[in-house]
């Protein structure tokens, strides 16, 4: 039973940053942007979270800084891809590089450390105990007592789904992706809609990044996003950006990650268990591709 609860908690914890980044990417996906900068946004978010938490000695300040930092990267994306009309793919690649370079540089510059920063004084994002529910056996241990950001990711899923499918913004957002010319002739600037989508992406990736460095663990390490942004991109492709689908996929990846940790205790080298999420991504993509091929014969 302990293993079971541990597996679920591990699943939720590794699903959270992927889900948050994927939800952010979903906004840009619906807006018709080829946005691959989630990886960099997560990383900048993770760094800024540590920065804010360290200097203000408050996890909340850390989260705010993470959101600001990732949004700043989104603003750079806006500047280059939308204002200067640089290729979106190139912009994404360059911003990811920039994120790695800037966080490594600032880590050295501000904290004077190389590689990673962990400090016992770093305040963590707290876990939340839900009264009453917490005392229910099994269910309580799973539903209650998770990190605040885990609940935030759940809430973000609901809000994203509502924004995308139930509001004026969502109607325009999806129109920008389906047929930008149609939106333009309706008198709405597709570029402006995309700017909002990118800002939303920045905020959500910032939250995901904050969880990486202040929730999942309490430290910042160079390149600690470790491909989660890319996995979130694969998730978006798999479910066409649908927030509910993203939640399911993120949980599946989280589960495979947790399973990897379990396997590790079964004497399998950690390098192989570490491959599980990437292999799971490849497997999911092949299933998706096979299904698509069946729906559309040559």
């Amino acid at each position, binding site marked *: 039973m302990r293993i079971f609860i541990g597996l679920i908690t591990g699943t939720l914890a590794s699903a959270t940053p992927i889900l948050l980044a994927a939800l952010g990417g979903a906004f840009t996906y619906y807006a018709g942007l080829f946005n691959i900068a989630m990886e960099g946004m997560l990383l900048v978010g993770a760094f800024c979270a540590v920065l804010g938490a360290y200097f203000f000695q408050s996890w909340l300040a850390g989260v705010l800084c993470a959101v600001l930092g990732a949004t700043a990267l989104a603003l750079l994306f806006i500047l280059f891809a939308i204002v200067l009309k640089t290729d979106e793919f190139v912009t994404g*690649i360059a911003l990811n590089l920039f994120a790695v370079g800037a966080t490594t540089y600032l880590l050295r510059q501000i904290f004077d450390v190389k590689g990673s920063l962990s400090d016992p004084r770093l305040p963590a994002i707290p876990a939340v105990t839900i009264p009453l529910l917490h005392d229910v056996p099994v269910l309580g241990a799973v539903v209650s007592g998770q990190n605040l950001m885990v609940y935030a990711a759940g809430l973000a899923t609901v809000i994203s789904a509502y924004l995308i499918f139930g509001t004026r913004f969502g109607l325009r957002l999806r129109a920008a992706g389906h047929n930008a010319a149609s939106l333009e002739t309706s008198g709405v600037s597709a570029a402006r809609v995309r700017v909002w989508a990118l800002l939303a992406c920045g905020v959500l990736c910032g939250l995901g990044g904050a969880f990486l460095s202040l929730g999942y663990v309490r430290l910042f390490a160079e390149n600690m996003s470790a491909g989660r942004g890319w996995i979130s991109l694969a998730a978006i492709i798999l479910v066409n950006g649908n927030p509910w689908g993203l939640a399911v996929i993120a949980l599946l990846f989280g589960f495979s990650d947790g399973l990897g940790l379990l396997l590790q205790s079964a004497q399998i080298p950690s390098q192989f268990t570490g491959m599980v999420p990437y292999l799971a991504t490849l497997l999911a993509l092949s299933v998706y591709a096979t299904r698509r091929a069946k729906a559309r014969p040559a």
Partner: protein
Amino acid sequence: MPRSFLTALAGILAALLIGAGVMLAQGYNPAATYAALFEFSLGDVDSLATTLKNAIPLILTGLSASVAFASGPVNLGQPGQLLFGALLATLGGLYLPLPAPLLIPSLLALAMLGGALWAGLAALLRRAFDMSEFIVTLMLNSIADLFTFWAITGPLADPDAFSPMTPAIQPAGWLPEWGEFSSALLVLALAAAGIWFVFQRWTAGYEWRLTGQNALFARLGGCNISRNFVAVMLTTGALAGLAGGLVVMAGPHRFLKGLGANYAWDGVMIAVVANNSLPGTLLYGLFFSALQTGALGMELITAVPSEFIQVLQAVIVLVVVASRGRLSEWLDVWAARRRARVKPLAPAPD
């Protein structure tokens, strides 16, 4: 050509100015910093040799990405392909009982084979399942990273070393030094010449280029798109694998932990900033190598952390690429205005 050169120059200058601004804001002296950068990368024969040697993996992974992007496939798998190239070369160097004249070519071939196989896996998945090589190569990067790490900590680990690494390969597999300069440069020159030959003279290379520019047109012209796709993936994988092999054979002569980490995205970065051109890839490869090589000396002299160069590189990529598009557009509009006054004639389609 002069225009692309000018816009690139303008972009680099603008990026260096931005870098100078960042340094000023942090209280460093930009002039001294750039001087130190130059001094320690190109200032004397020693530094020049180091810059050239460091440029080898940058240029080869850059060529890999350039050739792929110019021909269509979005091969982002240079890091993984480099690692597998290095791994196979190391294996050969450890266990192949051959004299140097045979061992060196064999190891180079093994390195290319390793990269090609890893890229070929992505090509296979594309052919079999129509999975986008873009995501697949990224996932394979992470897997290659973990796999090679397992190899050098487990079966191939040097029991006497304190950090994960293999034992040194046989000295017969070491690439000789010629004075200050590594003979790996010769291999690089051959590879670059080979790519030039493939693109300019080889019939299939012509098809690759044209497919990259307009696949439908090439297909209607009789080019075999899917066969070319596989060929491009194998070739670009081999280039990245060769980079890995050379890193082992010219440098530490063993597979060290974190071997490929320094070159992870550099190849893609160089291809992007060079707009996939062969001379551009060579020049930017050298330029970024000079920055990276000079960075250590810069840190010693000016207290600017060497990591600053990573930021500067990303700024250069963004500014050069953005200015390339923008400047050309402005020049076109400006030319159009001028012509509107002089009245040309060619009616437009509605």
